[in-house]
């Protein structure tokens, strides 16, 4: 079980009579590792709570996400969707941590955590509906691809502005505490987003209000082209939590068992003690930042190769095989099946119509106020006049 020692309080702090500056060398942040790359477990390592079923569910999600990411990058290149972001190389981080949660713990993600949503059971066709902005998209076709959200699955809709979900997670978790629910919030963010003021506000408030929240940092080395060495001068993100009265742990983010273990322990702290925890997962964004990006402009292939050797999916596969829970044959089959399913779903989603024009003005407010109704009416009249110019909607305007 995790340490629950008391924080040192000011009053007990020592006195000195000559100036001593403290700095990063006064705080050491160890990294939790459980799995070696070959799938063997470090000696003395304590395994997380995991059985075959959970292990295979995690692995299934890995495979699904790999298939999805690969396919959608291709789809973007073909011009079928406008934008995509992969999580290749980081699957163990979001999927391993979500696997430690209760199904109704709220997930507040940044944008590179489709794996967490898949683990929760978001249907493949919903992924596709979102990316194709069609009328079946839960988000009504309003946001760019990958901005998923699902109330049923307790996955807060993604918002592009970075860092904003962090103080929101504190408020959401405070709501759990008020209602004495046995739930926590997990809030994902990148090491880049951790530079936003909202990050600081969030962890400071989490410490003061003692909320059941897990702040999960994917420290993947880059924020678009900016390496973490130009993002911060400290020793990563974990020490910040210490400074604000939280507990923190650093894990090998490519080691799904370490991630799972750390998150299981963090969840206990959050739920049982209203102790907010920050987890820093050290990982690497193997792909481009997004389909709009080309990393060859700012980093070397060699660096990428070094990290490709730490592939979290492969590492976990080795362990599964060593457990006798999985085989190479099954592996080939599943990859194939996932690819086919993704392709089929994509083709389906492409056929679905765009959202109805009326949804241009719904949800701005709970009900459309008069001025929006008028603007919509005007717009419809205009579209009727120029149907060819608005092919997506012209055919479907009700002829009031």
């Amino acid at each position, binding site marked *: 079980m995790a340490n629950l020692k008391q924080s040192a309080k000011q009053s007990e702090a020592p006195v000195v009579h000559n100036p001593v500056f403290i700095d990063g060398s006064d705080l050491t942040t160890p990294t939790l590792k459980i799995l070696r790359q070959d799938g063997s477990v470090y000696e003395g390592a304590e395994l997380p709570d995991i059985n075959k079923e959970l292990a295979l569910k995690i692995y299934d999600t890995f495979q699904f996400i790999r298939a999805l990411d690969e396919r959608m990058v291709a789809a973007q290149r073909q011009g079928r969707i406008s934008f995509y972001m992969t999580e290749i190389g980081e699957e163990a981080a979001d999927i391993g941590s979500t696997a430690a949660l209760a199904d109704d713990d709220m997930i507040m993600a940044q944008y590179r955590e489709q794996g967490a949503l898949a683990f929760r059971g978001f249907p493949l066709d919903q992924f596709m509906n979102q990316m194709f902005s069609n009328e079946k998209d839960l988000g009504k076709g309003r946001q760019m691809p990958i901005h998923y959200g699902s109330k049923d699955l307790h996955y807060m809709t993604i*918002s592009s502005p970075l860092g904003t979900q962090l103080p929101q997670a504190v408020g959401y978790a405070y709501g759990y505490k008020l209602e004495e629910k046995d739930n926590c919030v997990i809030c994902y963010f990148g090491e880049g987003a951790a530079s936003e003021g909202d990050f600081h506000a969030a962890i400071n408030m989490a410490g003061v209000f003692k909320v059941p929240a897990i702040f999960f940092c994917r420290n993947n080395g880059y924020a678009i082209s900016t390496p973490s060495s130009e993002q911060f001068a400290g020793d990563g993100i974990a020490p910040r939590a210490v400074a604000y009265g939280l507990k923190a742990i650093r894990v090998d983010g490519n080691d799904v068992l370490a991630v799972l273990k750390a998150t299981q322990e963090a969840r206990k702290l959050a739920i049982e003690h209203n102790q907010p925890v920050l987890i820093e997962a050290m990982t690497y964004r193997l792909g481009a930042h997004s389909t709009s990006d080309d990393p060859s402009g700012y980093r070397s292939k060699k660096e990428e190769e070094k990290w490709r050797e730490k592939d979290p999916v492969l590492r976990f596969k080795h362990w599964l095989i060593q457990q006798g829970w999985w085989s190479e044959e099954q592996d080939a089959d599943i990859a194939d099946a996932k690819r086919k399913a993704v392709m089929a779903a994509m083709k389906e989603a492409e056929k679905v119509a765009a959202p109805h024009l009326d949804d241009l003005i719904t949800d701005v407010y709970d009900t459309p106020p008069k001025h929006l109704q008028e603007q919509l009416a005007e717009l419809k009249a205009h579209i009727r006049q120029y149907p060819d110019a608005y092919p997506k909607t012209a055919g479907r305007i009700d002829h009031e």
Partner: protein
Amino acid sequence: MSNMNLLQAVNNALDIAMEKEPKTVCFGEDVGHFGGVFRATSHLQEKYGKSRCFNTPLTEQGIIGFANGLAAGGHKAIAEIQFADYIFPAFDQIVNEAAKFRYRSGNEFNVGGLTIRSPYGGGIHGGLYHSQSPEAYFTGTPGLKVVMPRNPYQAKGLLLASIRDDNPVIFFEPKRLYRASTGEVPEEDYELPLGKADIMQEGRDITVLGWGAQMEVLEKAVAMAAEDGISCELIDLRTLMPWDVETVTQSVQKTGRLLISHEAPLSGGFAGEIAATIQDTCFLSLESPIARVTGLDTPFPLAHDKEYMPDHLKNYEAIKRSVSF
């Protein structure tokens, strides 16, 4: 009925809201035990406990971020920003998050339970940073409602409606009137409608429109004009977004003239939006240009605050100019 000042009316509304709906939570800088620097939240912590009325750390972006999350979880989150001048660190959480929460999620999630209260406006020798009227920064953001009351009765009814409205509402309180404005206020729970202007006085010659603390100034100006035989229709807009185009249009179609007054600077102030709309809806009725009597296009000054303010004399003169155009 009991006699209350505007602060007491706000406090009373919060009290009722918290009593009736246990999911209601009030927070902000110094809002807890101390009851806020103006004491708008006095005794709420005593009555409802520290978990429902509390101090936050000193971070406006954190306060509204927190409030958004709390509201998204189904609570009524009432956040206080100590002065409207200090709302800007929270601007992103308000205009990019709160305002767009429902829309971007296709209504999977919303922060309809959010209300942001903040004292605004000049007249307390506050200079640049304790005097601003930032309403127009928010009226230009679809998804937000903006409400500004003029007196205790209005404050209570509009605040209760704002809290219960299922949209994020920014509620700016005229701090100059916190103690100066008193009046009879029903003790019981009541709401005044959002989105409806209030015709305070009917008239024939010109429509005089404002909101919040400015109504007191306009009442004086209108009274002066009356002595000159000018009959003004005085309207308190109350809700700035979505605003009551219909009531203003009807009034201007009748009077043929419109004056709009606010403390915020002229350029980019909300009077511009109203004037642009009304010159369209009332083009054929307008007998003189729509007049705007506002603060100057400067930061809010200190030594010259009297000169800066759109006081009753400036409004009175503008009324006369408009009528004799």
